[in-house]
């Protein structure tokens, strides 16, 4: 990579001593990117946008919020009613969490379909799963802060899970609570950690991007870049594409914030926390529902907790479960089918997580949970051996039978939005 010649003398002077401008030029400008990325590759930058949005609105909210059981609920109402544009800041933050998860879930399923977790991107994938875990912890603690009924009872249910740990479980729960129930010490430490963890996420995101830039993006064909003809510079091609994606994302996001801000929330959280009154159904936020379904599917408490964490743990070892040398699902007819079944299974788990644990829902949850693990632990290793994959194209820019390359007439018509 050549060092760019900077015309501005100040920039030149600084860059000679502290090569930040060269760095930005390499990583954001000339950074060679496969030319055939689809819109599904927009989700990474959208996740970054969501993270920054959450941090900025979160810091402003923290200026007005009071982490005390007697004042938390009221301070949130103060923000909604008396702080200038407080309702806007809070609704962005509240819905931002949901949209962050929507974006990240699509990003993850993109990675699953196109085999983005395979060599040499295993660490990139693992860092991504770590980000998901941190996001879940952050979102959970953030949901406790308004100190509504669901905040309180959600915190009670989830922290109680740790009591399933043999021998020391109960002591751990008391230690987490800072007392003998979810109370003021719990709220203040959740606030402190909720403020801290997004910055840990930023740290892991930086590692995620460093790992990404080592080998560059995967692409819909899942084959390696074979030369300069396969890539285009990140700027202006993908900056312009990411900008367009961001605008579409913001349009959908804004429609939720301004017109249906409480659609994804639970009405019970507008009732102040009451330790003496349990809500009829304690339901987590939608993005936890698949995991909640897995938790409740297992009749044993410890077993349920282990399976729930196992559902994430299995993603950490995914690169070694799927040994097929072909990355993209496009050239794996069987894998492709099972991918859609897995997606349907996850949606089904999400649906079941929102239903009461009774009747048919229990049996369905068990089947869906079993299938989730079977997909990763049995089907993927098996497919790696038995599946007959379709022939791969020679390179991204060379059309090949079974590959799929932009044809000249299609390009001229402008139909192929790469």
């Amino acid at each position, binding site marked *: 990579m050549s060092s760019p010649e900077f015309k501005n003398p100040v920039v030149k002077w600084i860059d000679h001593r502290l090569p930040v401008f060269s760095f930005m030029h390499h990583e954001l400008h000339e950074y060679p990117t496969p030319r055939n990325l689809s819109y599904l590759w927009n989700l990474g930058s959208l996740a970054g946008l969501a993270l920054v949005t959450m941090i900025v609105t979160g810091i402003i909210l923290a200026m007005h919020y009071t982490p005390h059981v007697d004042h938390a609920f009221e301070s949130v109402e103060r923000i909604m009613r008396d702080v200038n544009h407080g309702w806007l800041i809070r609704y962005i933050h509240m819905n931002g969490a949901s949209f962050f998860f929507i974006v990240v879930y699509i990003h993850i399923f993109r990675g699953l379909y196109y085999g983005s977790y395979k060599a040499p991107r295993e660490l990139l994938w693992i860092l991504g799963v770590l980000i998901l875990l941190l996001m879940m912890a952050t979102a959970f603690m953030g949901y406790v802060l308004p100190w509504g009924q669901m905040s309180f009872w959600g915190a009670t249910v989830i922290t109680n899970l740790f009591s399933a740990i043999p021998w020391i479980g109960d002591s751990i729960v008391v230690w987490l609570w800072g007392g003998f129930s979810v109370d003021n010490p719990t709220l203040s430490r959740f606030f402190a950690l909720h403020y801290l963890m997004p910055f840990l996420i930023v740290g892991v995101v930086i590692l995620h991007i460093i790992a990404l830039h080592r080998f560059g993006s995967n692409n819909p064909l899942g084959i390696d870049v074979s030369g300069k003809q396969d890539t285009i510079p990140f700027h202006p091609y993908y900056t312009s594409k990411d900008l367009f994606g961001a605008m579409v994302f913001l349009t959908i996001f804004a429609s939720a914030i301004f*017109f249906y801000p409480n659609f994804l929330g639970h009405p019970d959280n507008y009732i102040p926390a009451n330790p003496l009154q349990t809500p009829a159904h304690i339901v987590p936020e939608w993005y936890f529902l698949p995991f909640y379904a897995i938790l409740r599917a297992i009749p044993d408490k410890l077993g349920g907790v282990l399976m729930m964490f196992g559902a994430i743990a299995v993603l950490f070892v995914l690169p070694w479960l799927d040994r097929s040398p072909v990355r993209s699902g496009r050239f794996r007819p069987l894998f492709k089918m099972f991918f859609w079944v897995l997606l349907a299974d996850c949606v089904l788990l*999400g*649906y079941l997580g929102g239903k009461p644990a009774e009747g048919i829902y229990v049996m369905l949850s068990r089947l869906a949970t079993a299938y989730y693990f079977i997909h990763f632990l049995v089907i993927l290793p098996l497919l790696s051996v038995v599946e007959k994959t379709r022939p791969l194209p020679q390179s991204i820019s060379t059309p090949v039978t079974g590959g799929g390359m932009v044809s000249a007439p299609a390009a001229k018509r402008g139909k192929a939005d790469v």
Partner: protein
Amino acid sequence: MFKRINQTICAGGIAMLACVGVMATSVVTPAMAAGGGGDIKDHEWTFDGPFGYFDKASLQRGFQVYREVCSSCHGLEYIAFRNFADLGYSEGEIKAIAAEYEVMDGPDEEGEMFTRNAIPADRVPSPYANENAARASNGGAYPPDLSLIAKARPNGANYLYSLLVGYKDAPHSDDVPDGMYYNTAYSGNLIAMPQPLYGDDIELAGGGDTSIEALSEDVVTFLAWAAEPEMETRKRTGIAVMLFLFVMCFVSYGSMRYIWADIKKSKA
């Protein structure tokens, strides 16, 4: 062929979005189930939808219903008198309304608490000193504060309206214990709140329909405002933001196509 693959990708993306959407709605379904069990009627509200607004005359009538009926048991703790400017009252009118209430203040120079007439900066005083006092006066039941009630119940406005007009004779009168009342909208059909409105309960300041349906509609409109006083501003801002973003979508799409044009050519 590329076009086909591209369609597959788009279809995949849309499917994923749709799935997320399904997951999202599944949150709402249990929420409905949690508060439901009763018969909730759909009612048309001026504040529904992206262009929704509050009818100021209805808000003022609703406030009168709250003041003369609801407020004997239910507080409105997050609303200050100054907020009534949203109802279309002038500063003078708000001062006059506030002055009709007494609030506790102090301590004064001798260290004594005292009562004084409320001013616009005060919040609407609650009918009871605390929750225990409220329970003691209501047979153990706690009349909830109404500031957020329209947001704190699933399908809030429709639920409240159905509740207010939902008092009926129980099919089997022996099934209703003392101190409970039969209501078609309430979950389990037995509610501790006696029927608050019968129609013609009050004489509206500006005149108007005092049927139980009209009074219920007015007070629910008032409560919807109390829960979301920012709603009109929010939706109006939203329209402007959406217009801006639509334009930005087209502009950024155009600039992307312009920038990518040479890539397509070099490939052909």
